[in-house]
């Protein structure tokens, strides 16, 4: 991947982006709050029709880059079977690993200019870390829901094209240990909602790839 490749955005992957042109009559706008306060960080909303009728999404090819000692995007949502490339744009070594139960892996150390790829085929959350730089973190959601949207802080999320009906909503934030699950009902036209999740996740760097706890490093 050329060095002049533009940086990845903070959030990548939503059902509206992955299915452009869909013209269903309902939409849903809303926000996520954490213990009643505006979300500080990233989150994700997934919607599953309660009637259970929905099709599978096509796997994608996405990128999570390492640049300036940060992963970008901070949150990536992909359908199962998607391939993610992890190019290193810094002029020093990075490592990419995950100890998440969904998919444990360790891509090893590699220099700037190199890239590694991995297929994600299990549904769930994969938290990424770099074993060299404790402050680096990112989240990959492997999602089989037909509708999903990533959320950045207090910025409202927006599902533009949904079928009216009842849904199970799963709402996650990086401040939450577990996602919130609730049922919602959508009618024709614009719907609005506010989800409040618990802020019970442990903050700070994740443990290293051997499970040892780490202290935050001086600068990101």
């Amino acid at each position, binding site marked *: 991947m050329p060095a002049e490749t533009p940086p990845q955005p903070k959030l990548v992957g939503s059902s509206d982006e992955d299915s452009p042109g869909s013209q269903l009559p309902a939409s849903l706008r809303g926000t996520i709050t954490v213990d009643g306060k505006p979300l500080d960080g990233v989150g994700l909303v997934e919607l599953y029709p309660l009637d259970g009728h929905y099709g599978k999404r096509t796997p994608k090819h996405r990128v999570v880059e390492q640049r300036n000692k940060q992963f970008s995007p901070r949150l990536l949502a992909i359908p199962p079977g998607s391939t993610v490339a992890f190019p290193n744009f810094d002029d*020093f*070594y990075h490592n990419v690993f995950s100890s998440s139960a969904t998919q444990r892996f*360790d*891509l090893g*150390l590699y220099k700037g200019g190199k890239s590694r790829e991995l297929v994600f085929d299990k549904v769930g959350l994969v938290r990424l870390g770099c074993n*060299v*730089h*404790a402050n680096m973190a990112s989240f990959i959601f492997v999602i089989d829901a037909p509708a999903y949207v990533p959320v950045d802080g207090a910025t409202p999320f927006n599902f533009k094209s949904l079928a009216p009906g009842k849904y199970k909503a799963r709402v996650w934030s990086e401040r939450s240990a577990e996602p919130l699950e609730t049922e919602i009902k959508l009618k024709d036209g614009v719907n609005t909602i506010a989800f409040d999740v618990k802020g019970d996740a442990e903050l700070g760097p994740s443990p290293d790839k051997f499970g040892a706890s780490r*202290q935050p*490093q001086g600068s990101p």
Partner: protein
Amino acid sequence: MKIKLLVITAVLAPAALAAAETADAALQRGHDLYKVGRIHEACEAYAASDRLAASAATERELASCYEQDARPVAAARLYKHLGDPAKATKLEANAPKLRFAINPTPGLVVKVDGLEVPATEDVPVDVGPHEVVATAPGFAGHTSVPVDRDRIVVDVIVRMQPVAETAAPNPSPSPSPTPTPTPNAGPTPVAATAMTPEPAPAASHRKTYGIAAAAVGAAAIVTSAVMYGLAEHKFNDEHALCPSSRCANDGDLATANSLLSDARTYRNIGIGTSIGGGLLLIAGGYLLFAPHAETTHVSVQVGRDGAGMAYTGSF
């Protein structure tokens, strides 16, 4: 007996075979992964194979893999083992290095990722995070070092902190807790160390008491040496902070005063424990080697500002 041996053989033989097969399978998996460029996983497979059935051929594959996986020091270690020191030296020359900045402390031991290394030389390491632990009698320090570039020298500063030492053996019963002075005891006065056997010791106990007195005396001498070392350390810090008693600012002045106060305290404790320890050694020697006495009574008081001893006996 023969039946038992047969059963054991029958149980172990398939297990050994399975291990050999697994080692071969792991080696093959390593080859397959290496071919498709999944170098790190290939190295893990080679390492697994080597653990199951170590061989020079597998270790050579593993060393080559480590070279590709940005682990030249791990590769060098293997090449040394394989009798290729020239290649090992070449790899280590290009590896990142750790350079330690640790106060020279008697008995200093430095370990990187659990392996002891020389404290005064640059230590080649692989790219990645490293745990540096330094220990010395009465001190310990620890730091994590992320190394993310080739050929760099990373200065590693380890701050040695005083730690509690294991209490010196005190075989005689003590009427009150008598902690051994520790380097971080600071201004806390050293509690009295008393050895006052009551009633007077029987002749058969002379040797025991003599050994006990000598042991406590020796421990006190060691403690005093630590205290002197600490005092010296604090004085040095104060001199470094305010050379020729001139401080750069009020903050440094306050720190220097605190260092001086600590240094004096440690020195006084050192004086007290050395006097007490010396007297106890003499008493122990006397009890062990002097002619028999009917009763003896030894009591020693060691305090922050001095020490005293009373030794009475009827001979």
